[in-house]
């Protein structure tokens, strides 16, 4: 507590006025607050809305009397210290022999129970809420001392006007200990939680762990789905996906559920795209057949032969030559662009990006067969080379393609980019999803303006320290790149799922105009206050 006069030590030594009995109004210990209304009142516990007089901030006070089962509860600091957007911050606890009062931040909004009663939710909205709950549970479970909420239910989920989701009521949360993975049922497990939403192990069959919250989340999703009456909604893929995920979450045997919340999230995110993948896979097969047929026909000509059917297709598109038409060496010098993704060739950059965005949405790393780039080496005037979702590993043969201005190797298997040292004209480099470990050759590129390191998780981030000016940089990956950007000049920065809660580094970047950030980080970024750059929030 910042203000010395309100230290918890003071609280403990404070004598209570015994005349007041159970009533807590007029109480000395609460003089910094004004009670505004009573949210709920039971024999042994009460819940009040209060206002902190000094700041006008609203807080919630839960009062537990000695007859209440939670009167004696001492919540470990690990639970009290939890503070991130999505949970109400703990403020203070006042306790003596007459009652225990826990004060937490008040979250304005509606409970999910009320929101679902007021308006029928669509399957999409349910999916959105489920994903946001996953994010919150993930943050709780992934702490060094994992916090198990143990009471995930519609009454404990709050949605505010902006659609942000919060998990409240940590009354019966506990810390999962290492040894908890053992199957020994614990004798000290007290039966807490809410019938229907509580996992079977919460009734004392075995110790509770992260999987208990996964169980409750599953029941909650099912509960929301059961409220959908619109038949068309029940036919949506989101509805079916949610049903399947909910079922696996709420298996009676914890061993048969998703084992951690990130698996639930993956399932909710990826399965959504499986159908598209199937269609794409079929298309890809079709194109391989067409390309192979083209190769057979191509063999009749005497001129240039190609190693890779997709590259031949891409080159033929650029030259406007149909399958079977002869291509000579000098023709190859006319080729300026080569675009291919997942064994399909494209004439324009727009078509290429359209196909890539579909592949991105599919989310699965299905790759094409293209691996050898020898065919490109002969096209000495290529300026733009974009090869996405292919099996390319070695790009060293490109050393002669000195006119290259744009090189995109999205979701390939490239691990070394040393060759870029020989490509001085490069302006744009996209390494999205490649296992590149050394990005230092990029420093030597004088004209580099666009750099995409999305999903490149293995490089040494300090390379970005005092990097030349960039118009665009994407560091949506697992590295700690954000720590090395201070002082750099970047006009547009994409963060995505970034591994930090402290966004102060943004203030140290020069010329920054726009930041693309994940919606989850909105709270943390808003803490920076007024900024000179704008922030675009995305999922």
């Amino acid at each position, binding site marked *: 507590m910042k203000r010395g006069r309100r230290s918890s030590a003071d609280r403990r030594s404070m004598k209570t006025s015994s005349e007041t009995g159970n*009533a*807590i*109004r*007029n109480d000395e210990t609460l003089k910094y607050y*004004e*009670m*505004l*209304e*009573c*949210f709920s*009142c039971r024999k042994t516990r*009460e819940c*009040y*809305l209060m*206002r902190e007089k000094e700041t*006008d*901030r*609203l807080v919630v006070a839960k009062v537990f009397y000695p007859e209440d089962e939670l009167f004696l509860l001492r919540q470990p600091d690990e639970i009290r210290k939890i503070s991130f957007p999505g949970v109400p911050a703990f403020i203070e606890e006042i306790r003596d022999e007459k009652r225990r009062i826990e004060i937490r931040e008040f979250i*304005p909004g509606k409970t999910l129970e009320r929101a679902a009663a007021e308006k029928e939710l669509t399957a999409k909205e349910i999916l959105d809420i489920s994903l946001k709950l996953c994010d919150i549970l993930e943050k709780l479970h992934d702490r060094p001392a994992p916090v198990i909420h143990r009471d995930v239910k519609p009454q404990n989920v709050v949605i505010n006007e902006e659609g942000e989701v919060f998990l409240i009521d940590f009354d019966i949360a506990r810390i999962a200990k290492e040894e908890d993975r053992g199957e020994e049922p614990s004798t000290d497990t007290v039966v807490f939680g809410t019938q229907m939403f509580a996992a079977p192990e919460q009734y004392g069959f075995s110790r509770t762990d992260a999987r208990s919250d996964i169980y409750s989340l599953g029941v909650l999703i099912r509960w929301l789905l059961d409220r959908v009456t619109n038949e068309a909604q029940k036919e949506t893929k989101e509805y079916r996906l949610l049903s399947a995920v909910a079922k696996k979450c709420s298996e009676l045997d914890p061993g048969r559920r998703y084992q951690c919340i990130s698996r639930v999230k993956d399932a909710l995110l990826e399965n959504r795209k499986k159908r598209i993948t199937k269609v794409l896979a079929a298309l890809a097969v079709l194109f391989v057949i067409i390309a192979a047929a083209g190769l057979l026909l191509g063999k009749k000509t005497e001129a240039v032969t190609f190693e890779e059917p997709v590259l031949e297709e891409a080159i033929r598109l650029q030259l406007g030559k149909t399958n079977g038409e002869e291509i000579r060496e000098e023709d190859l010098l006319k080729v300026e662009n080569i675009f291919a993704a997942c064994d399909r060739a494209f004439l324009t950059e727009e078509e290429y990006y359209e196909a890539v965005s579909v592949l991105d949405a599919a989310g699965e790393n299905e790759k094409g067969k293209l691996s050898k780039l020898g065919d490109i080496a002969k096209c000495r005037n290529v300026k733009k080379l974009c090869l996405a979702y292919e099996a390319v590993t070695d790009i060293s043969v490109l050393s002669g393609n000195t006119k290259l201005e744009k090189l995109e190797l999205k979701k390939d298997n490239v691990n070394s980019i040393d060759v870029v040292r020989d490509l001085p004209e490069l302006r744009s480099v996209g390494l999205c999803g490649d296992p590149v470990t050394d990005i230092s050759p990029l420093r030597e590129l004088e004209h580099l303006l666009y750099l995409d390191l999305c999903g490149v998780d293995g490089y040494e981030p300090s390379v970005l320290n005092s990097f030349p000016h960039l118009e665009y940089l994407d560091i949506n990956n697992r590295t700690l790149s954000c720590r090395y950007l201070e002082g750099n000049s970047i006009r547009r920065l994409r963060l995505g799922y970034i591994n930090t809660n402290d966004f102060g580094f943004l203030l140290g970047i020069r010329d920054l105009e726009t930041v693309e950030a994940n919606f989850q980080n909105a709270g943390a970024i808003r803490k920076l206050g007024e900024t000179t750059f704008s922030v675009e929030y995305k999922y």
Partner: protein
Amino acid sequence: MSQKKTPHTSTLLRRLFKASNLDRFLAENKEGFDVPKFHEVISAMCRERNETAEAVIGRSGIERTYGHQLFNGTRKPSRDKVIQLAIGFGMNTEETAELLKAAGKSPLYPRVERDCILLFGINKGYGIMEIQELLHEKGATILGGSPKYEDLI
């Protein structure tokens, strides 16, 4: 409000107990389950009491434009605003409790000191100024006095 009046809860309950077929009862009394909107409730109340919204707003101490927005439904009231309206209507404590319930707000609760002051004032039939003075005198936030609390709608 539509011409067809929404039946009172007690009427609905009587009909339910008399009905022999639940499905038919549910179908026939469909409109009975629609919870009336708050602005419809206060507008209906004006008609019942032969009052104008203008007069009620005037006696509630709510800013005029704001008050009309509450009556036409473009704004939703905070809990304090509902209490101010109850005072504007000259309601007793039971009626105030009903109005709070219709707005989906917590009732006045005698264990909360501020609510206690309000209950006392309303019971005595005080006007808005007297009640605000009483709150102020007791060191409680006046009605509509906390911006954060007003934001809760």
